[in-house]
């Protein structure tokens, strides 16, 4: 670990880091554009200049390109270094249109920050500026090339990191242009990261164009509900409307990036048709009355049809808080069946996976990136876990062969990230034993549960792609509480009363159930079929926990208060001229709290919170932390 001095501060730098990173480790931010933690250095922008006063290297140097070495004496404040940085930024800004007031990056722009930091405040150049013609890059990303400072981050991410081949850099000298051969939607499933990675406003999120400034945002650390990978995100909201989603760094999960599916998913939270008031037989009522009616009618169903005629159904998108309370709710209303909404095939695969996974044999995304061989078993990662595809590419770039095993692992998935793969029919054909760090990524939609035994013996680390953002958590609880698959719970017309808690149940399955109640924030088939509807808070409107594919429990925080978006309010009644703490339509609880209320009404003992007993350790999860790996608890318990 080299020891050096930066601005009179003694620094012990980690092995192999640059002077720029060493400075960062003691809180000195040297301006930088082309250097990015996930992409490394390029030496293209020249704005990170420092002066070395003594040691093995002397004079002006680019701090991102220079490895920190023993005995270096670095000054970031030396007049020569300061002057160089000022001249470089002045030159980078020569063609910039100075259009910050109409740029969505404004207020969260590295170019703004570093222009000021480098001391360039007055424009001297009076000549004509070079201008570009922008391209139409599809519905998600706006292109404004005149703001470009040629740092090459976008193309390095898109081509090298993500393997895209339809976006790049054209031209030379003063005319470099970052774009496509011709207008058209960007093809990479990771294109949205251009918005995050460009240090200026060349790429901005079109879906949130001209909606808000950084200081207006409601933001909180959150977790993507798109699939079981559980990427860390920051949803951005304003006026109770979800505007956009940006990636949030978690080196144990998604690193710096997220996929387009997670970023640009349709924002159901904003859907005007989503349930926002309690309904009994289609008539609006208060929550208390709706809960009373629900319990009363369940009583009637039980009386009429007898034992075991009531089912409680959750889902893999229900937070772990809700999922943990589901069995208590079922007990309090004497339900005969408890289901976590899994299909029979998913149930088999999930229970196989949780009983096989241990702390040692489970694979994280980092394990995938560092693997020396990867087998994708019966999965299309574009559907089941897009970010794993990006991780697979990083391993492939370091030389790991990629095997696609089984008939449900299409070759097209790896083409999207520009890698080559070998197709195999059976898991047994994969020569995993000859590798040191093999990883198998197993899909669970088509997976044959017998394969779990094969995987268990293979010596490979395994990533099992559970359905939904909380599939792993649901599977653990399902095993603990004897949950059954959805079809089984609804089979043979035995169920006459059903309580769906954030559950996506196909309409056909509900057809034979006379009484349906639904607790949800989405307008599902169950909500449509339900005689009693109680709205719940959406994932951005409450705190919660998801357990991701590797069994990592991650806390997400409330981004915005529940309530009608200002956009949807009648302008004549806005602002409401009565004093109230909650916004209109804001009397909505997270599903687990609704369940606690119901348990209380049913006269049962109410738990203090969602997590108790062996789950109590989840109470103190830090939303800004790395999460906590809880996989293997089944196996340890048994």
């Amino acid at each position, binding site marked *: 670990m080299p020891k050096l001095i930066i601005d009179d501060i003694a620094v012990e730098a980690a092995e192999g880091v640059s002077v720029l990173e060493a400075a960062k480790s003691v809180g000195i931010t040297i301006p930088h554009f082309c250097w990015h933690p996930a992409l490394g250095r390029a030496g293209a922008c020249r704005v990170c200049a420092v002066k070395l006063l003594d040691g093995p290297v002397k004079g002006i140097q680019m701090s991102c390109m220079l490895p920190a070495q023993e005995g270096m004496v670095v000054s970031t404040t030396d007049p020569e270094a300061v002057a160089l940085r000022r001249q470089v930024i002045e030159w980078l800004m020569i063609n910039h249109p100075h259009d910050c007031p109409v740029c969505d990056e404004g207020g969260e722009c590295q170019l703004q920050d570093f222009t000021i930091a480098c001391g360039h405040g007055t424009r001297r150049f009076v000549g004509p500026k070079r201008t570009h013609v922008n391209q139409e890059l599809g519905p998600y990303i706006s292109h404004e090339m005149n703001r470009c400072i040629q740092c090459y981050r976008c193309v390095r991410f898109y081509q090298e990191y993500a393997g895209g*081949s339809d976006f790049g850099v*054209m031209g030379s000298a003063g005319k470099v242009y970052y774009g496509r*051969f011709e207008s058209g939607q960007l093809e990479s499933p990771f294109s949205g990261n251009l918005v995050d990675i460009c240090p200026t406003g060349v790429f901005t999120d079109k879906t949130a164009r001209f909606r808000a400034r950084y200081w207006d945002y409601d933001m909180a650390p959150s977790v993507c509900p798109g699939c079981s990978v559980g990427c860390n995100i920051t949803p951005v909201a304003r006026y109770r409307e979800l505007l956009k989603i940006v990636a949030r760094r978690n080196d144990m999960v998604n690193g710096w990036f997220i996929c387009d599916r997670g970023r640009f998913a349709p924002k159901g939270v904003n859907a005007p048709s989503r349930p926002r008031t309690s309904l009994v037989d289609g008539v609006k009522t208060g929550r208390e009355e709706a809960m009373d009616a629900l319990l009363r009618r369940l009583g009637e169903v039980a009386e009429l049809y007898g034992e075991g005629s009531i089912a409680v159904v959750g889902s893999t998108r229900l937070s772990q808080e809700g999922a943990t309370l589901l069995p208590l709710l079922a007990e309090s209303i004497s339900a005969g069946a408890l289901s976590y909404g899994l299909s029979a095939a998913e149930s088999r695969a999930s229970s196989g996976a949780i009983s096989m996974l241990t702390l040692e044999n489970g694979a994280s995304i980092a394990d995938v990136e560092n693997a020396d061989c990867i087998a994708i078993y019966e999965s299309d990662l574009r559907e089941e876990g897009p970010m794993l595809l990006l991780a697979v590419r990083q391993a492939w770039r370091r030389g790991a062969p990629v095997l696609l095993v089984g008939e449900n692992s299409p070759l097209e998935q790896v083409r999207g990230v520009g890698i080559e793969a070998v197709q195999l029919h059976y898991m047994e054909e994969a020569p995993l034993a000859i590798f040191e760090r093999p990883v198998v990524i197993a899909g669970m939609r088509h997976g044959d549960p017998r394969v779990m035994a094969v995987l268990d013996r293979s010596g490979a680390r395994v990533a099992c792609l559970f359905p939904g953002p909380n599939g792993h958590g649901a599977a653990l609880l399902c095993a603990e509480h004897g949950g059954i698959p959805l079809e089984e719970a609804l089979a043979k017309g035995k169920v006459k009363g059903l309580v769906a808690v954030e559950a996506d149940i196909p309409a056909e399955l509900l057809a034979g159930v006379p009484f349906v109640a639904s607790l949800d924030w989405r307008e599902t088939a169950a909500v449509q079929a339900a005689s009693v509807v109680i709205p719940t808070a959406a994932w951005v409107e409450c705190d919660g926990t998801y357990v991701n594919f590797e069994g990592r429990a991650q806390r997400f925080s409330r981004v915005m208060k529940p309530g009608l978006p200002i956009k949807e309010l009648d302008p004549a009644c806005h602002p409401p001229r009565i004093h109230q703490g909650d916004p209109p339509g804001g009397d909505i609880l997270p599903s687990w709290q609704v369940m606690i209320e119901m348990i209380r009404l049913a006269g049962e003992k109410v738990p203090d919170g969602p997590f108790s007993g062996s789950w109590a350790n989840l109470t103190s999860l830090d939303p800004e932390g790395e999460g906590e790996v809880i996989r293997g608890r089944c196996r340890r318990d048994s």
Partner: protein
Amino acid sequence: MIPEALKNELKARVAAAVTNREAAVDVMKRLQAHYGWLTDEGVHESAEILGMTTLQVEELATFYEMIYRRPVGRRVIHVCDSISCWAMGGESLMAHMAGHLGIGVGETTSDGVFTLLPCCCLGNCGEAPTMMIGDTLYGRLDSARAGQLLEEERAAVMGEMEGGR
């Protein structure tokens, strides 16, 4: 569309290369010779022959200054504007050329014979100031010599056009 024979010949050239990409400049130059400049159609055809995307071809095409993505005259004149030539009178050479031709830098004469372009180093610094007309390199130029070369090249082009007729 390029003739089948040319396409097959270029495909064989690509097949003989260690990586497709290294044959890209050859392929682009042949298609440029065929069309007179590298047309959009030519980019698509290059991409197909090379097994690359159109973007990947365009990245190379727009990087190299002797691949022309816009129509040019029969002879492209590249006048070096790099440091050695600049020190030896490259700027006045360029001005003379523009004067002789009656066009600005980046333009093509109305008869379609010449296009005048700057060029950053022709690797002929020892003979500065220098320029290239078509595929021929000329050094130690002054205004008179440059004017004379233009006459010769124009006559040669006329001859080619007669011959071609």
